[in-house]
């Protein structure tokens, strides 16, 4: 069963299309890793999949309310404790179990610390734990392992494996090796957008006037 499929997608950033003609399908239990040089449009593509920006062309097909997005920024409130941060997101997604998530990302010892007093890698772990409390099947991850040490990367890989085994799916943008040999890899380098053909809808002022 395919949880997310993308058909001939084109996305734009800053009024210019970045990648186009992207098509893929992610089935339950599968992971896809997006690669490509800096600035090719990985972040833009993920934001489009998450519904934060409309696709310029093509379609994104996913069940409603099936997608959880983890951006560069972790969305933590520095004044709230680790547990409070997680509990808030759990409640937003209509759930109330956070212990499993704390356990999985090895945050139990830090549960009562204010999120502002965490180091870069600890913050990132908390950001990833958030995904576990959403209960959503499709995870979109933008450079998830930034700042993580080797142990935490392994922890993260284990969490991803668990999620896939439970019938979930994941799409990740990353520059480094993730220790997930089972994941498919899509290099966006080949989908770099060409200048807009006449007739096509302009992505914004920059394309309309160029």
């Amino acid at each position, binding site marked *: 069963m395919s949880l997310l499929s993308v058909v001939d997608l084109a996305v734009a950033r800053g009024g210019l299309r970045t990648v186009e003609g992207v098509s893929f399908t992610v089935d339950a239990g599968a992971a896809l890793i997006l690669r490509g040089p800096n600035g090719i449009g990985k972040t833009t593509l993920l934001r489009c999949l998450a519904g*934060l*920006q409309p696709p310029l062309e093509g379609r994104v097909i996913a069940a409603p309310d099936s*997608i959880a*997005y983890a*951006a560069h920024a*972790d969305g933590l409130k520095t*004044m709230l404790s680790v547990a409070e941060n997680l509990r808030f997101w759990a409640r*937003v*997604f209509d759930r109330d179990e956070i212990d499993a998530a704390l356990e999985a990302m090895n945050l139990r010892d830090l549960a009562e610390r204010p999120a502002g007093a965490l180091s870069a890698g600890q913050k990132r772990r908390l950001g990833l734990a958030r995904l576990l409390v959403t209960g959503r099947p499709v995870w979109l991850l933008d450079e998830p392992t930034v700042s993580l040490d080797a142990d935490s990367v392994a922890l993260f890989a284990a969490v991803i494996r668990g999620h896939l085994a439970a019938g979930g799916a994941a799409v990740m943008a990353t520059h480094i090796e993730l220790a997930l040999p089972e994941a498919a890899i899509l290099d966006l380098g080949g989908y770099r957008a060409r200048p807009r053909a006449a007739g096509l809808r302009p992505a914004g002022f920059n394309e309309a006037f160029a």
Partner: protein
Amino acid sequence: MTALLLRDLRLAIRAGGGFGLGLAFFLILCTLVPFGVGSDGDILGRIAPGILWVGALLACLLSLDRIFALDHEDGSLDLLATAPIPLEGAVAAKAGAHWLTTGLPLVVAAPLFGLLLHLPLQAVPNLLISLLIGTPALSMLGAFGAAITVGLRRGGLLLSLLVLPLYVPTLIFGAEAVRRGAAGMDATTPLIFQAAISLSTLALIPFAAAAALRINLR
């Protein structure tokens, strides 16, 4: 939505006296004004309705950046926009939290400040009613302004330039109601107008604010 409301309230309290800050600002304003205009009780009494209302606007204004800017910076807003809460609901919850921390304490404490400024006693009921009706609209319009300027990192001045003109009708009717109260006149008309403005603001502005947020998150 309740979760969001509660979180925002908790954050306001954690951040150091959410409820107190607005009041303290108001208190300072009420002390500064006599320094500025002189301490003649008669004049003070006549300008009191205006000062109280303008003070309410400013207290509201100074806390507006809390509504969305912090959430935008730390990325929560992106995540909220992909959460199962409709964005309109999120806007309403956040404006509600803002009102509870700035508007409501003001309404409660306004009679006291009126006393400081020699506001005639018979104006107090009108003051209370008009603030109670008007401040929710201030919070909601403020949320709209905050949604438009979210992501622009240029201080409160632009925000106030956008928001304050929207406050004009509320201010006029509110201050007029208090002034009529002070003069012993009937203030039903301005209060009704004010209620109408507040109600339509509360009903329609969340959609405009959510649209602005979506544009800014794009």
